């Protein structure tokens, strides 16, 4: 008998062990070091075809200027008051492109793309952003190595409370 629920038993025994199959079914995340990337590979040319079919309506031709935001950095940065944040100028890790598209896009058919399609789209968007050459094959090996210009900008939060405004 415990008088306080803070003094907990070592284990309550509720729930059930997760099998490897159960974990794999949901473990879709991709880390910056590439952990989580599936087999397969993609190239920009194939990605463009998929993009034009499934993404262009929301994100614009070439990933620029769609109703749901640009994904590709434009060169008219000087002209617009504030440069639109895109994969090319704001995303610190290339792996996030794969991870996010696979989990959430296209917005109206989430989770409907094959891994192969996601690799192609990733290659296309990286290439359109001039982060890779248009011939570069993107796979579990190459994707984590793509150098993202924004990465050097990212710093962890240093607000700490106290009198200082940060």
């Amino acid at each position, binding site marked *: 008998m415990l008088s306080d*629920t803070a003094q*907990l038993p*070592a*284990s*309550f025994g*509720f*729930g*059930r*062990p*997760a099998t490897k199959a*159960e*974990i794999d079914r*949901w*473990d*879709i*995340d*991709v*880390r*910056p*070091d590439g952990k989580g990337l599936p087999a397969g590979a993609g190239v920009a040319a194939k990605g463009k075809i998929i993009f034009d079919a499934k993404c262009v309506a929301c994100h614009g031709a070439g990933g620029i200027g769609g109703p749901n935001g640009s994904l590709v950095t434009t060169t008219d940065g000087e002209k617009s008051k504030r440069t639109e*944040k895109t*994969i090319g100028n*704001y*995303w*610190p*890790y290339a*792996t*996030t492109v794969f*991870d*996010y598209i696979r*989990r*959430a896009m296209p*917005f109206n058919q*989430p*989770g409907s793309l094959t891994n192969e399609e996601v690799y192609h789209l990733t290659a296309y968007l990286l290439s359109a952003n001039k982060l890779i050459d248009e011939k570069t094959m993107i796979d579990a090996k190459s994707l984590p190595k793509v150098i993202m210009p*924004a990465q050097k*900008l*990212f*710093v*962890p*939060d*240093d*607000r*700490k*409370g*106290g*009198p*200082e*405004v*940060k």
Partner: protein
Amino acid sequence: VAVALVQNAHGQTLQKGIPQSDLDDDPTKVPGVPPGELGTRSPFEKLLKDPSATSSRSPLQDIYGMITPSDLHFERNHGGVPAIDPAKHELLIHGLVEKPLIFKVADLKRFPSVSRIAFLECSGNFRSGKETLRPQDICGLTSQSEWTGVKLSTIFREAGVKPNATWFLAEGGDAAVMTRSIPVKKGWDDAILAYAQNGEALRPEQGYPLRLFLPGWEGNTSVKWLRRLELSDQPFMTREETSKYTEGVNGKVRQFSFDMDARSIITFPSYPQRVEKGWIEIRGIAWSGRGKVVRVEVSTDAGKSWHPAALQDPILDKAHTAFRYLWQWKGDETEIMSRVTDETGYTQPTMKQLVEARGETGGYHFNPITAWQIKPDGAVLFKPI
């Protein structure tokens, strides 16, 4: 005209024959509606959130006290509100743990539980630009509930989180499969796997049947419709912690900015309310993601002098706290505003201070002092900043 003022089946049957003219007179001469299975809201109360495609703002100017009615709790989602059968919903915890486990919601309810009243605020909670903004428009992406659930630390112990685990991924079961990386320390400290809100199951818009709740942290990290926790030795750098929920600060990009800075707003008087000459109880809410509110000051002379407001008990950790300040208005044009100080000694800054400190005029985590213009005719207008 026939009216049905009490909107349940009984009310519609009993009261539909009552002519409006009788109600004008004397409700004591009209038999009332018998007790029902569910209470109702008076049709005279027009309480609505203000929705956009991606969020919906709480009507702060219409809310009393510290609890937000659950159906008025702000919303922000990235893939819409999913329809989840709670009997089928499961939570997986895996990665750097001794025992990967799967819990049904019913399993989680068997663990020791905890309740706490705390605010939840979106870090994108600031708008300005025109005088006809209400508190709802300016910062309606904050709400407060009593959350009930199991401490995440209890589940961490159950699964045996390994010592080298420093971050965990929280993933939702919505169409966005929302993901955020959270330091494991927060999980041990005060994170809750919440299944209830204000006495009942979570509302669908707040994550039914299960959400993460991280007291004091930006709302997006309290992942809704939670279905997976993966323990890791590094953050996952998801889209919501890189492309979004990061902010430019002096040429850099600030990332993992979790804490919600202390903030306050006067909700009465505010646009579109009007005031009359004489005594006015200025009312508002103040809160801090870093602990308790220790002081709220009010200025009724456009910031020249500041006076302590009364705080309503109980003053809770990381919770909206109601404040009040009694003011005699003589009819002169002026500006009123509030500023809060939290237990770390942080005082809510002006917009000018924020812009100076960050070198940016916008982005996440803007919590400036908010002023209302009081016009000689009693009109109250926001002062854009």
